[in-house]
């Protein structure tokens, strides 16, 4: 390999800014094809600067990414539409980086980041939700690969995805946490069937995925056989970071939507709903400040456990606020825009109409860790209260009641 970039560029804001400008000078976004531009950006180490050199980064501090993004945005450069490839960026990529072989990293990360290959996540099952370690999808060793059979659920993007990260059981005789392995599954394999999963909003944001003897070469395993749970922890930890970490302006989420509805003097506005609105607005503002405070703790190098409070509060507030909005709307609240089955590419919790927002918000306390599981985590890991009694830790998975 040629000399390290770090030897020639200062990895501070100024160094990254000038490197970005140099890149723009030789790759004019106005005249370069979008895909070509994104691939070149990856190769220049400006995709995610905290990744290693050669894998889209420069080994720079993660906090400097906004410097690069701002330069590119100012130059009118195309981005990789992060909201469309969130699972790849937020979950698959950090896991591949942590556990992948050199070949896997080289092969998967570039098209993942440019969005040419969409990723999805095959974790949850009808029988394994909060208790993810009880997954029953079986992967059986056949020659130089694996045959996988089972059913996965709540898979967003599965119908667009090229690849999936998959958690499957490779040893049913081992206790549940010890008998799983982690794979990259080819979603175009003939053994993979994707069906839309219609939800209470009418649309099908998610899918069910049926695996029938789907073939996975052993070269697409991430981590050791039996080590799947540990690998999955990396994925899930990054999911929480992705959910908790964004700074928001005041009224940046559901509180802003409902505040705007109030400002239009809707039918249901009265003294009692005003006090409810203000109490929720206040809590939303305080939660926003708590997020900002969490960011300051991280920046000061002392991350607190407050991250788990963020999701709990976010779910509660989205639900309360969107419910209040429907009441404010009065007779308008009795209408719904469209129940027909749609397949949205991205999800926007504050999009569509009030009825949609109310129904979609119900998922906020379920997806990515239910509020009940979060409360257990807070109680046990933050407050130090005794763990729930467990009857499933040392028993072979196949003998567990289900």
């Amino acid at each position, binding site marked *: 390999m040629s000399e390290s970039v770090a030897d020639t560029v200062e990895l501070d804001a100024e160094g990254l800014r000038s490197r970005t400008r140099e890149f723009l000078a030789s790759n004019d976004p106005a005249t370069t094809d979008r895909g070509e531009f994104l691939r070149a950006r990856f190769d220049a180490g400006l995709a995610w600067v905290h990744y290693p050199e050669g894998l889209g980064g420069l080994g720079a501090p993660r906090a400097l990414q906004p410097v690069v993004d701002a330069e590119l945005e100012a130059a009118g450069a195309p981005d990789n539409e992060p909201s469309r490839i969130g699972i790849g960026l937020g979950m698959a990529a950090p896991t591949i980086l942590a556990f992948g072989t050199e070949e896997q990293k080289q092969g998967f990360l570039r098209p993942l980041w440019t969005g040419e290959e969409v990723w999805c996540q095959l974790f949850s099952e009808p029988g394994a939700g909060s208790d993810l370690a009880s997954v029953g999808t079986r992967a059986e060793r056949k020659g130089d690969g694996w045959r996988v059979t089972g059913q996965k659920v709540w898979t967003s993007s599965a119908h667009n995805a090229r690849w999936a990260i998959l958690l499957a059981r490779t040893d049913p005789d081992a206790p549940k946490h010890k008998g799983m392995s982690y794979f990259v599954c080819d979603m175009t394999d003939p053994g993979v069937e994707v069906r839309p999963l219609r939800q209470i909003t009418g649309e099908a944001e998610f899918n069910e995925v049926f695996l029938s003897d789907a073939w996975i070469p052993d070269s697409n395993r991430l981590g050791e056989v039996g080590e799947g749970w540990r690998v999955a922890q990396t994925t899930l930890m990054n999911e929480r970071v992705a959910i908790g970490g964004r700074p928001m302006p005041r009224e940046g989420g559901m509180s802003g939507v409902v505040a705007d509805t109030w400002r239009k003097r809707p039918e249901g506005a009265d003294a009692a709903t005003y006090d409810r609105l203000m109490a929720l607005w206040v809590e939303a503002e*305080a*939660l926003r*400040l708590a997020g*900002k405070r969490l960011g300051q703790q991280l920046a000061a190098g002392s991350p607190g456990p407050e991250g788990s409070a963020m999701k709990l509060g976010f779910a509660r507030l989205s639900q309360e606020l969107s419910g209040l909005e429907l009441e404010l709307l009065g007779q308008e609240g009795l209408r719904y825009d469209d129940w027909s089955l749609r397949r949205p590419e991205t999800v926007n919790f504050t999009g569509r109409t009030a009825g949609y927002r109310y129904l979609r918000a119900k998922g906020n306390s379920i997806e990515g860790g239910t509020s009940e599981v979060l409360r257990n985590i*807070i109680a046990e890991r933050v*407050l*130090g209260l005794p763990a729930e009694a467990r009857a499933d830790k040392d028993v072979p998975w196949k003998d567990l009641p289900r």
Partner: protein
Amino acid sequence: MSPNLLYSTEEQDLRASVRDLLTDRCPPERVLELCEEGGTGDPALWHTLATQLGATSLNVPDELGGQGASVREVAVVAEELGRFVAPVPFLGSAVLATSALLGCRAGEHRDAVLAEVAAGNRTATLVVPLSSCVGGSFPTAVRAREGRLSGSVRTVAEGAGADCLIVPAGGAEGPELYVVDATESGVTVDAVTSFDITRPVSDVDLEDVAGVRIAGPDLAATVLEDAVRTGAGVLASEQVGVAEWCLDSTVEYLKQRYQFGRALASYQALKHRLADLWYELVVARAAARYAADQLATAGDDAPVAVGVAQSLCARVARHAAEECVQLHGGIGMTWEHPAHLYLKRAKADEIALGSPSAHHGVLGPLVDLHPAP
């Protein structure tokens, strides 16, 4: 500049000194004993706080013997005092009265009083009902005519031990502020029975009393509004301290209390209630820190920050105290256990310096959310 929502190293040091002192001198048994003695608080502790830790002069300028710190530090002290429900007149004297004095123009009398109060030689209070909220009209219960004051104000914070009274009064030309010596003839300060037994309240009656005017109609209303706002913002930090004690002590109790052969802390129904309290405390602390920072820097967003902090922290502290009593079971209902001291403080604090719904009504229009017609 982005507001610092954390505690600085200096603030952490200050907190540690106050906590050390209170751990030593203000344990729950002691607080209970003092309250039984008739609600005069702990003058010796107050004196130590003022003279050894300088807790009464933090945001007073250096030239008046203060420490030139800010409301951020005042709020840190309030948080610790709340954690111990310490029966000292900090809110009335070091926060409300001191803020009012700081808001007035420099002058011989104002400077002298401020220096004495900051040094802890005298204790002051602001003669308004403790339930006063920002956004109210200027009180005219006391009338001023040619420097003589008459009128009555009920339920004043910590009035009984005060040496000097800061009195808002309606003068011939409008709102005015006076300093009145509590020993002047015609001054009656009646300690009434306080719901919050760790914070006394009094009724103040003035009958043709001599006062020194420290602010006239051009300034008095703003000074009073700012003082009440600062009080509400600092009270939010006190409420964080109250809530934190309630959560901590309940967690400890549930860990050691066994029923049905298990620690109570192992029941999921109780764990979830404690997790919810912890969540509330996380958001309350962020709101209180933001309010303290905005007040300290005279930020444009201070009125919003205080409205958010006070309406939220009041609810959180009250909820934490109610859960503390309930989850302690029978012992939580006894006089002997300190939980009731916190419940009484938390419920009184919810009313003090504006209830949540009063603050909602003031805050709403500031953020373009107007009440229903």
